[in-house]
């Protein structure tokens, strides 16, 4: 089915070139990888299958049919606590914007996947370690509310170090805020899918990441509530290597599937195909978005 008129191109954003070198060394197997080949392989090591962390816009490009309409990018962080540690919080944000070419730790918008219109959120570890502050909470909530209005399925890729300390309790409260939005969205019968990528921990793992209908874990991702070091301190022994990996979680029954990044798009399309009644989506496809960003 053709992409509806409102799915306008938003892919002209600057994609970061963090490291200009042509070659990248795999941190797992030490293979030297040609950057372009790596990009063509969805940032998965051609030799050992190691999944490199991925930029939000690269991820989006990997998923969508053609167009992506970003919403919520007008929502940007403040400094409610007047936070200073080694540097003031606004300076840290500025540095992160510079480094990541992102306005915050999540990108949200609409797109089609194999013709299925979806609301899509992608977190990025490059921005403040993917921590959830007010803006992440607000953008996720906004995305779910807009998806609910259109009765679209919603897919969120998580990557997060937890709640953002620099916004204190306002950050923690985003767990409550996003949860309420998820609950309202799902209660209306809409499909919610989360894809947990490396790493998904803390407040995000204890809120929307595990509140979805289908929880997909990206292969080899590290996923858990408490940090590894905290647990090691608690139990006073080293944890096994596979602890908190996607594969470990599958065995422990926490996630529906573990999927190699190169199969994630196809998997999502199949899940949409199973769970979404196309008849229900028909009006959504025709809907004109009224959100400010489109």
């Amino acid at each position, binding site marked *: 089915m053709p992409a509806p008129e409102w799915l306008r191109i938003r892919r002209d954003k600057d994609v970061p070139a963090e490291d200009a070198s042509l070659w990248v060394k795999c941190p797992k197997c030490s293979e030297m990888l040609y950057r372009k080949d790596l990009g063509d392989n969805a940032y998965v090591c051609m030799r050992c299958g190691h999944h490199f962390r991925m930029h939000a816009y690269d991820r989006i490009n990997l998923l969508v049919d053609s167009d992506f309409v970003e919403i919520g990018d007008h929502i940007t962080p*403040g400094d*409610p*606590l007047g936070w200073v540690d080694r540097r003031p919080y606004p300076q840290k944000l500025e540095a992160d914007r510079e480094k990541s070419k992102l306005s915050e730790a999540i990108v949200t918008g609409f797109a089609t996947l194999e013709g299925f219109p979806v609301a899509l959120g992608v977190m990025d570890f490059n921005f403040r370690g993917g921590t959830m502050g007010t*803006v992440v909470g607000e953008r996720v909530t906004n995305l779910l509310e807009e998806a609910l209005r259109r009765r679209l399925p919603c897919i969120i890729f998580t990557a997060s170090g937890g709640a953002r*300390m620099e916004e204190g309790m306002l950050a923690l*409260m985003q767990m*409550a805020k996003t949860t309420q939005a*998820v609950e309202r969205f799902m209660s209306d019968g809409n499909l919610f899918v989360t894809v947990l990528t490396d790493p998904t921990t803390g407040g995000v793992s204890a809120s929307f990441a*595990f509140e979805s209908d289908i929880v997909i874990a990206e292969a080899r991702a590290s996923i*858990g509530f408490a940090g590894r070091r905290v647990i090691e301190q608690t139990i006073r022994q080293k944890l096994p290597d596979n602890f908190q990996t996607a594969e470990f979680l599958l065995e422990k029954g926490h996630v529906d599937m573990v999927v190699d990044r190169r199969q994630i798009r196809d998997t999502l399309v199949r899940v949409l195909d199973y769970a979404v009644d196309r008849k229900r989506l028909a009006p959504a496809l025709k809907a004109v978005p009224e959100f400010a960003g489109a």
Partner: protein
Amino acid sequence: MNVIVEREKSLSALESRIEALRERDAGSDEVKQLESKVEQLRRDMFGNLTPWERVNMARHPKRPLSSDYLAALDAFDELHGDRHFRDDPALVGGFAKLRGRRVVVLAQMKGRDTKENIRNNFGMVSPEGYRKAKRLMELASRFRLPIVTFVDTSGADPGLSSEERAQGEAIAACLVTLAKVEVPVVASIIGEGGSGGALAIGLADHVIMAENAVYSVASPEGCAAILWGDAARAPEAAERLKLTAADLEGFGIVDEIVAEPIGGAHRDGARFVEKMLDAVDGALRLLEPLAPDALREARYQKYRRIGAWHDDAATRAVSGA
């Protein structure tokens, strides 16, 4: 070392001296002078606490615990277990009567002594504790009983086996359930509100906080360790984290503060517990007339607003407070 306990020690010599004098001659000028001196000292020491001092107040070994609040209820019948795996003593729940009203109570249980603390895992709740809480929230909603929670935990249990049993999912499930329930929810932060582990039973229509309780996204020690690699800088972290009741009321996170006597709630524990229960009662009285839909909409909007962000499209700052 608890800085409040240390400070109390320096007072206690003076206090016992007064006590001794009073026995001999209650009305003497010396006694009166000393009494007013102690009063002054107490005000100086405890009148205007720093965030770090409040952290210590919240962790004071004599501070009223959930068990004291449960004991002060008109009636309490504990309901155990998640029906699947284990009964977690770190989170206790059951039917209760509060000022004559039927409610379901959930409470995080720090222990009064080492034995109790070992039994209760120092009030750090495991997944099965949160799953019991979820079950009881659903029971409350089913029978239209308000939910009353008492929050007092340094955080969710960070152990190996809690991770193996999906601690994140367990907390998330509590949050979803609190978002869903069609009955009033009133949460009281009575001591330490440690991060997601506290919020799991803290998402509420009305959040009450004891004046010297703290509620934080991370422990001051943990925060200091992350920021400066030095847990000893916790007092500084406590300052930055804005974890006091007054701060949180300013952010719209806390709806009501219950004042403590000078020197902390434990100086008149029984009365403070009653004051807190009165506050819960008052909140329930206001919430009870609301229809389920109105209640849930208000709850949604309460959290919907929280945060502080810029809206570049609207070129105005949006803030929840």
